[in-house]
C-alpha cells in the first residue's frame, strides 16, 4: 500500500507557482527523500500533505484513501520552523501535544517519559523550554512528532542544528522506526545527510519534479564515472584536461567527474606521473552531484 500518493498536485500563491503538478508516491515502510534547494517547494508540498493548505488542483491520497483530517492522527510532523511554548514545562507541553493527537492524558504522559529517557533528557522534563539548549529543544520537538506512534513520519530538515552525537542518536531512532515498518519522509536541501537513509527520492526544483525514483536505480543510471583522488604534490592535471569534465577540490582530496568516454586508468597514470597517489577510487556520484547536474540541466 502507498502511505501517501500525490497526483498532479498544484499550488499557486498569486502569480507564483509553488508546486507545479507534482506527482509521487511512497510505499509503506520506505524512507523517502524530498530533496531540493531552498524555495523549491518542499515545505509547500508537505503543508498540503497534512492539510495546512489545500491544493489548487490535483489529488492527495493518505493511507490509500482521499485526504481526510481524521488520518492526521497517524502522521507525525517535524516542521522546519521549530517551535515550542517557551514558558511551558516540557512534560506539560508534550502531554498537551499528545492530547491534541487524540491520546489520553495518562498515555501521553507515559509515552513522553519513555521517549525522554530514550533520548537522555528525562532529567529536564520539569524545566521550561526557554531554559533548554537548542539541541535539547530539537529533541523535544522530535519527541513531540513521534509521541502518538504515527505510521507516517514527515521530517523537514531533521538534522538541522544538531551536533554529530545527537544526529547519530536521532538517526538510530529513525532506522529503528523504519524497522517497525513506519513510512518516513525526509525533506532537506542537505542531501549528504539523508543519502544513506533514503530508499527512494524525489528531486524538486521550482515546484517541479526533476528526478525521482529508487535511489539505487538512479545512481546506477549515472554509472561509476566519478573518481575520488587523494594525492600529494602537483594538482595542475585537473585543469584543461580532456579526461576531466568537472572537479571539486575539497582540500584533502578531490572529486573528479570523468569526461564522457574517458578511461579512468588513463587518468590514474597521468596523476601518478606527477604526484604521489594515496587513494584512487571509482565511485557512484553523490546525490548532491546528481542534483547539481540535473538542476543545472533544467535551468539551462
Amino acid at each position, binding site marked *: 500500500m502507498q502511505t501517501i500518493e500525490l497526483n498532479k498536485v498544484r499550488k499557486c500563491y498569486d502569480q507564483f507557482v509553488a508546486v507545479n503538478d507534482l506527482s509521487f508516491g511512497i510505499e509503506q515502510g520506505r524512507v523517502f527523500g524530498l530533496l531540493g534547494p531552498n524555495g523549491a517547494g518542499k515545505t509547500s508540498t508537505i503543508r498540503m500533505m497534512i492539510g495546512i493548505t489545500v491544493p489548487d488542483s490535483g489529488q492527495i491520497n493518505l493511507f490509500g484513501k482521499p485526504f481526510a483530517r481524521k488520518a492526521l492522527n497517524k502522521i507525525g510532523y517535524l516542521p522546519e520552523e521549530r*517551535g515550542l511554548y517557551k514558558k511551558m514545562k516540557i512534560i506539560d507541553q508534550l502531554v498537551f501535544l499528545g492530547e491534541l493527537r487524540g491520546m489520553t492524558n495518562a498515555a501521553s504522559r507515559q509515552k513522553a517519559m519513555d521517549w525522554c529517557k530514550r533520548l537522555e533528557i528525562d532529567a529536564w522534563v520539569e524545566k521550561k523550554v526557554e531554559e533548554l539548549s537548542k539541541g535539547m529543544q530539537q529533541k523535544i520537538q522530535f519527541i513531540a512528532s513521534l509521541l502518538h506512534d504515527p505510521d507516517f513520519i514527515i521530517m523537514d530538515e531533521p538534522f538541522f542544528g544538531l551536533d554529530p552525537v545527537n544526529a547519530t542518536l536521532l538517526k538510530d531512532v529513525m532506522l529503528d522506526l523504519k524497522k517497525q515498518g513506519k513510512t518516513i519522509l525526509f525533506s532537506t536541501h542537505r542531501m549528504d545527510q539523508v543519502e544513506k537513509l533514503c530508499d527512494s527520492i524525489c528531486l524538486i526544483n521550482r515546484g517541479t519534479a526533476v528526478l525521482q525514483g529508487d535511489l539505487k536505480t538512479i545512481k546506477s543510471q549515472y554509472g561509476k564515472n566519478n573518481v575520488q583522488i587523494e594525492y600529494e604534490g602537483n594538482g595542475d592535471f585537473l585543469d584543461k584536461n580532456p579526461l576531466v569534465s568537472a572537479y571539486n577540490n575539497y582540500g584533502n582530496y578531490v572529486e573528479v567527474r570523468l569526461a564522457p568516454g574517458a578511461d579512468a586508468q588513463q587518468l590514474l597514470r597521468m596523476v601518478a606521473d606527477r604526484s604521489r597517489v594515496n587513494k584512487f577510487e571509482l565511485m557512484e556520484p553523490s546525490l548532491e552531484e546528481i542534483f547539481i547536474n540535473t538542476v543545472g540541466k533544467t535551468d539551462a
Partner: protein
Amino acid sequence: MHNTLIIAKREYLERVRQRSFVIMTFFIPLLVIGSSVLPAMLATRGSNTPKHIVVVAAERGTAEAIRSRIEQHQDEDQAASPAPGVDKKRGLPSTHFTVDVSTDLSDAARTGLTQKVSQKQLDGFLWAAPSDISARKLTFVTRDLSSLVDNAVLGQQVSDALRREALKSKGLKEGDIDAALEPVNVEAQSPLGKNAPDPQKMVVATLTMVLVMYMTVLLYGINVMRSILEEKTSRIMEVMLSTATAKEMMAGKILGVGAVGLTQVGIWAAAAGVFAIYGVASTGAMNVVRDVLNPTLLIYFGVFFLLGYILYSTLCAAIGSMVNSEQEAQQMQFLVMMPMILSIVFIVSILQNPNSGIALFGSFFPFTAPLVMFTRIAVQGQAGELWWQIALSIALMIGTIYAMVWLCGRIYRVGILMYGKKPTLPEILKWIKYA
C-alpha cells in the same frame, strides 16, 4: 471541537497559573477604586490652613454682612458635617476663611491689597464697589485661581449675603428672608417609585461596572493578540496546525482567554459580595449591592461582556496573526480599540441623555454596543420600550460576530504562516479570498 477544548484548557491553565494573573486580579480593582474614589477624596479634603481674605465695600454694613455670611456658613458646616471640612448638604468641601473688612475703595488701597496678595501676606480680597454690585459682577483677587471649589463656595456666600442685604433694604424681616431663600430640593425619581435604586449609587455602580467591562475586554482582547503573536514568533503554529485547524486554534484561544477573564470577573464579583456582606462599612456597601446589582443586571453584564469580548478578541486574533512584532501590534491595536475608548468618552453624556441620538447609535453600532447598551440598561432599567432596542443591539452584535469570525478566521489562517514584513491591505484582502 475536541481540539478546541484541549487548546482552550491549555490556554486557561497556563494563564491562571501565571503570577501576572494573580497580580492583575488584585491590581485592577485597586486601579478602578483608585481612579474613581481617590481623586474625589483628595478634592473634597480642602486645605487645612485657613485663608485670610479682606472684603472691601463702600459701606461697612455690606462688608460685615458678607463676612458674617461666610463665617456663618463655616459654623453650619462644622455643626452639620461628621467629617470636618465637608459640607454635607451640597457635598462640597469648604476651606476656612478668616475675613477682615475695609471700606477704603481708593485706587491706592486696591494697589496695596493686590501687592499684599502677590507677596503672600494675604490670600485674597473681594472688591465690592457699589458700581460692581449693581452690575452683579465682583472681583476676587487671589493667587489660588485653581481652587475652583473654594472660590465657588465663596461666590455663593457673597451672592447670598448681597441678596439678603437687598431684601433687607426693602424692609423684609430676617425670618422671611430665610424662608424665601431656603433652597428647594428636587429629587429625581424613577417611575418604579420608591423601589428604584438611589440614583447616585446607581450611577457609581454603573460606572464601576462599565469600567470593569472596558478594562477586562481590552485587557483580554490584547491578551489574545499577544498570545497569538507569541505563538507565531515561537513558531509553534506549524506543529499545532498539523493536527488542529486554524479555526479550532483561534476558537480555543478565544475561549481559553475568555474563561480566564470570566474567572477574574467572577473573583471580583465574589470578593465584592463578601466585602459587602462582611465588610467594614457594611450597611452602605450592602445597600449598593442590594439596590443596584440585581441579578438581571448581572446577567446583562455577563451577556454584554461576553459579546464584547468575543467581538474584540476575534479582531485581535486577526491582528495578532498579521503582525510580526509587539510594535506593529501596538499600532494596529489602537485602531481596533478606538470605538471602545470612544464609548468611554461618551459614557457621561449617555448617562445624562440615555435616549439621545448618540446613545441610540452607540447602542446599535456593534463595536460600541457592549458599553453603551449596558450603560443604558443599568440606568433606565429593563422596563418599557427598551426591550426591542436590547434585542436589536444583541442581534446586531451576534450578526457582526459571525461575520468577524468568518473574516478574521480567514486572515488568521493565512497570517499565522506568514513571517517577515507587515502585510498591506491589498495583501490582506487577497488572504481573505484564498481557498
